[in-house]
Structures are given as C-alpha cells and as structure tokens.
C-alpha cells in the first residue's frame, strides 16, 4: 500500500516529464502551430488573429527555396521570431532597397549560408533591408499554411508564376 502511494506520484511525474519533452521536440522539429502578429505580411496574413502551421523539418534552411515563407529568429532581437518571404538564396543577386524607391538599383550577392528575406507588405516590414542577409541557421521552419480562422484556411503559396520562354 505504502509503496503504491509512493510509487504512483513518482510514476506520474516521470510520465509527465517524458510527454512534455516529446511534445517540445515535436513542436521544434516536426510541426508547430502558432499565432502570427504584425502588419509586415499583409495581405498574406492579417495583422492579428491568424494561426499558421510551420513544417519544422525545414529548420536551418534545409530545402528552403526562393518564394517560401519561413519562420525565423530575428537576428537583432533576443527572443522574437518572425515570418517573411525568401527572396534570394546563396549566390543570388538581390536589390538592397525597395522597388519604386531610391536605392533600388543597388544590388548585392547573397553570401554563402545566408538568404535574403522581405515581408509582403514592403512599407511596414522589418527585414533584410534593415538587418542584411539572414543566416540560414536562424530559419526554424517553413510556413505550410494558414489554419485559423478556419474559413480562411489555405496552403501557403510561393507567389511565383511560370512564364513561357
């Protein structure tokens, strides 16, 4: 009886620990669903209230291509994460500025191991135009779609269109 009373809370604690660790690993390495905030990705995501799903197997930029939406650690802030669109991968030439504004003709080549990310809402986005190329190692996952609100659910699109040569 005593061993049962002593054993049970311990077993319960250990099981809780195991399940918590498993869930944490699943969230950081497999699939993460999180709310998105801010105006930088309008009109793809609204300012508040959208929940998005990220495939975390794309962490460290594995398999990320131009046009993908990525969840990344903002390099200049200690804890915040952001969502932006990949514009250039290593070796690509990208514009340092904003289309239609002075400085747009200034180009750089994205360095090895980095990518160039920009928000969909150009005037209200803090992205590579401010902090420069983003190390691929700061990419945590690729956004695969919007989940909430449920009526607006959809897969993420890369926005690229095929043109006939």
């Amino acid at each position, binding site marked *: 009886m005593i061993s049962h009373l002593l054993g049970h809370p311990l077993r319960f604690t250990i099981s809780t620990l195991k399940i918590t*660790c498993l869930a944490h690993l699943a969230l950081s390495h497999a699939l993460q669903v999180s709310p998105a905030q801010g105006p930088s990705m309008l009109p793809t995501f609204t300012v508040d209230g959208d929940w998005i799903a990220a495939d975390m197997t794309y962490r460290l930029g594995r398999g990320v291509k131009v046009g993908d939406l990525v969840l990344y650690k903002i390099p*200049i802030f200690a804890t915040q994460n952001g969502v932006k669109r990949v514009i250039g991968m290593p070796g690509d030439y990208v514009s340092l500025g904003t289309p239609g504004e002075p400085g747009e003709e200034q180009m750089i080549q994205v360095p090895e191991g980095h990518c160039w990310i920009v928000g969909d809402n150009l005037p209200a986005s803090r992205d590579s135009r401010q902090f420069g190329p983003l*190390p691929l190692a700061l990419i945590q996952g690729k956004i695969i779609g919007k989940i909430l609100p449920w009526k607006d659910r959809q897969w993420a699109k890369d926005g690229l269109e095929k043109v006939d040569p």
Partner: protein
Amino acid sequence: MALSSLWARLRGSAAGGSTPSLTRATALHLIGFATWIPVIAWFNLHVAELTVVDGNSMYPFMNADRDSSLRRDVVLNYKWAPQEDLQRGMVVTLRSPFHPEVVAVKRVVALEGDVIKTKKPYPVSTVRIPQGHVWVEGDGPPGSSLDSNTYGPVSKRLLTGRVTHIVYPLSKLGPVKWWEHDRPLVE
C-alpha cells in the same frame, strides 16, 4: 483503453507469468528505455551536452596536442540561455553563419556597442558591433580560424551554448577560466 490493456498483458506475461519469456522481458526493457529518449534528446538540446572539439581554431587552448595525437578534447557545452549574461572572453558554440549545419567553437571578443579593431582578412579596420550581435574569434594565430574576421559580427541567436568545463584530457579537467583571457578591443 486498448493500449493500456495491451500494456497490462505485456507486463503480466513478462513479470508474473509462470514461464517468463526472455524475448518479452527484453522487449519490455527496450520499450521502457525508448520512452526516455525524448528526455535525453531534450536535455542534450537545451541543458547540457558533452561535445568533442574538432579542428584547431581554439588552439592552443583546446586540442593542444594536435601535432602529437589524434585524440581530441571533450568539453561540457552548457546550453541553457546561451544569449544571456555574455561576457568578453567567454568560450561559446555557435552555428557557423556560412555553414548552417556546422557548429563552431569560438571566443566572444566584443559585445554589442563595442568598437573593435579587426584583423585580416576583414575589409574594414574598425567595426562597431550592431544590436543583438557579438564578435567571435578563434584563439589561434590570424588566419587559422574561420571567425568574425571573415564573416563579420554574428547574431546572438546563432549561439547554441557556452563551454563551461573541459572534461578530457583529464590533466585539463575543470572549469574554463575564460576571464583570464585578454584581447584588447582597440589597440
């Protein structure tokens, strides 16, 4: 429900059965061990991990016997809150900005806001470290390590841990005395 009855049957036949099957008992132990794998993985990712140091970027502080032995140093990599309370001189591990899959060992030389005199091959002679970034260098002679003098200031978010103890070789066993390291920012 189905799972718990299956579990009870497995347990019953392994522990209480008149002829305990060795295969069953082994399977049970293996499953019991497997449930610990997420805990171990999480601990190694977020708390601490023993790491073997490759390469000579921290020579002679680490891998001092590189010319006479293939044996490499083993260090304790403390991974809890690696971005907090950083000090100049600390030895840290970070994801290499040029190679996302590579984890590098370097020493923090300058913190955000510091002005540092760079070494070759950096194109500019002095740099002010931007917000959220640090300057990391290897201990070896210039040119022996791929560090901030090539890729510039690195984001603190790239840091994965802090080297707090040397575990092997046993002659160096003990805490890393990073505060004894001195590298003037501007000479």
